[in-house]
């Protein structure tokens, strides 16, 4: 999955010194690409004032299950945790190494259209299932060329996130069978 447009590269930061007492904290941080150390002062639990080359930035931070978040002067950043993958159909499909790929819903939704049948060959980008959630139609597409190995939903079904709707298998594997 492509990075957020609102997510530029995350600069590496090293804490040099950290000073704190019961109600205040401040530190000096070395950041890649900045010559002199950066001063950070905690304003409240999640808010900081960061001074870079004499220029102060107001920063609000938060850590979520799959990303770090930050607000800086009207801009919002979302930096996914490096070790975690997003639970999207594409990520799930990529995670399934080898021949198989499972296509799952990413949200509670209704299956508005089932566009494939078992055994059908599909090309990368083909719509497999059309979901409807919150007045929107959301296509689940094939992550690569494959054939449809199994279908676990029907039109009109209400599906929960993470439930596998379609299983794909590699085209070549199915054609040739397991080799010696």
């Amino acid at each position, binding site marked *: *999955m492509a990075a*957020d*447009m*609102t997510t*530029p*590269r995350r*600069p*590496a*930061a*090293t*804490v040099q010194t*950290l*000073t*704190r*007492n*019961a109600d205040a*904290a401040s*530190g000096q*941080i070395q*950041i890649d*690409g900045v010559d002199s150390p*950066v001063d*950070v002062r*905690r304003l409240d639990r999640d808010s*900081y004032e*960061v001074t*870079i080359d004499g*220029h102060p*930035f107001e*920063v*609000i*931070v*938060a*850590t*979520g*299950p799959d990303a*770090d*978040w*930050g*607000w*800086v*002067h*009207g*801009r*919002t*950043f979302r930096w996914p945790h*490096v070790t975690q993958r997003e639970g999207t159909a594409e990520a799930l499909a990529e995670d399934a190494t080898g021949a198989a790929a499972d296509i799952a819903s*990413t*949200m*509670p*939704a*209704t299956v*508005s*259209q089932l566009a494939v049948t078992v055994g059908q060959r599909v090309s990368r980008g083909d719509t497999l299932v059309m979901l*409807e959630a*919150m*007045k*929107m139609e*959301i296509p689940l597409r094939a992550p690569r060329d494959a054939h449809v190995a199994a279908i676990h939903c029907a039109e009109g079904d*209400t599906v929960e996130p993470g439930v596998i709707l379609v299983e794909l298998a590699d085209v070549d594997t199915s054609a040739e069978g397991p080799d010696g």
Partner: protein
Amino acid sequence: MSIRRLLIANRGEIAVRIIRACRELEIESVAVCSTIDARTPHARAADRCVTIGPPRPVDSYLSIGAIIDAARQTGADAVHPGYGFLSENPEMAAACVEAGLIWVGPPADVIARLGSKIEARRLMVAAGVPVVPGDTPHDQSDAGLSDAARRLGFPLLVKASAGGGGRGMRAVGSAHELADAVHSARREALAAFGDGTLYVERLLRRPRHIEVQVIADHEGRVIHLHERECSIQRRHQKVIEESPAPHLSPALRARLTQAAVTAAQAAGYRNAGTVEFLVEDASDRGAPGHDGGHEPVVAFLEMNTRLQVEHAITEAVTGRDLVHAQLAIAGGAPLPWTQEDIQVRGHAIECRLYAERPHEGFIPDAGRLLRFQEPTGPGIRVDAGVATGDTVSTHYDALLAKIVTHADTRDAALARARAALDRLVVLGVRTNARLLSSILSHPRMRAGHVDTAFLESEIDALLADPAGAEDEPGPALALSAALAVHRRLEPGLRPDGSIQTDAAVQDPQDPWTTLGAWRLT
């Protein structure tokens, strides 16, 4: 018989907004919620809250039986439906009346008449309100719809008779696209409304969507509260609205408001409602607009028999509280204002904040709101249905909040909206906030020359990085530094905000702690 105890059959920002009106009017408020909404702002704000069912809307907010039961159980004497959910459901209105409850809205038969696009259209034609050329063929087969489409000409819209909110609606540019559009519109209409009846309608070229707020009392008196420009839409979902509509001649404004009052009178309307029009500017078709021979085309689109999402901009420019008036009229009072009382002062803009991923095809986003902080200041009103710590679910509409700004001039209201969005903090769930800012800064928006095609046609440019802001390294550096410190200060911080105690090793009273180098990856 004025209302003493009001049940609000809704959730989110509109429920919070109606509960606020109850507090101001010293009416007791009863909220209803699904099991996953028990700790949301609307459930907290009310005097009482009744859990009416599981998360799925059909089991809770769309369950007429559960809501009537909740009203009986709490001794409520009236029901306000908000918008969406059951607000335009005539069976709900009828069920309330049968249960001896005041329904804050028009009578069931009026809702039913205006809810059918075909019947509403007939009514407006008979009353002399201008409509868009179109046809509902008796033969609803593919061939029958195809014949009707050919008679009308392309481009056209295929629409669900029972539709609303853009569902069951498809634009068709030419004949060979018709079959696909008919099939998908029919499928969507059947799924959403249980009625696959379709009609075809001429597609106006780059029309503006302008609507008029009306309100009527039980004596049949109708007044209007001027117009709202709602052309900034994506797939027929409004994104930014403003009042008054820019560049509207006094003559055209008078035509629209008069047509709206006529429409409400023809429908026997009661309480607050909105008459939506499409306006196709003759000058946009290359015709000279100053010779008097090319009047703008005005066409009735539909009448919404409820309070609108965007009612707050009308409240801002007129200084009138529509929910107060709704509750007074529902309780039997006459209209609180004459037409002459309603004057427009200044300009108001509404930005709708949605939980969605604009860069990934606008799919809805969900998750825990790690931080939600509203902008404040003179001329800024935020109607929010969420707070820090809430979980945003895809079970419901993606609207998190409305940011409404009001100022003396349009330019000042736009600038105030941009400044307010800069002070809005939403962490944990992705939103369209940046897109809203980009729209407000777009030259056509600044000039007030937008139409319903604007957002779709400009979307790529609007989603691109404005003015190379991504290249400026300062904010990312600042955030990286702050996160490095934050991780050290909250070593046991879990995503849900709790602290893992065994990791909290530092003595918080130790005034000076110098730590070794630690690299954040």
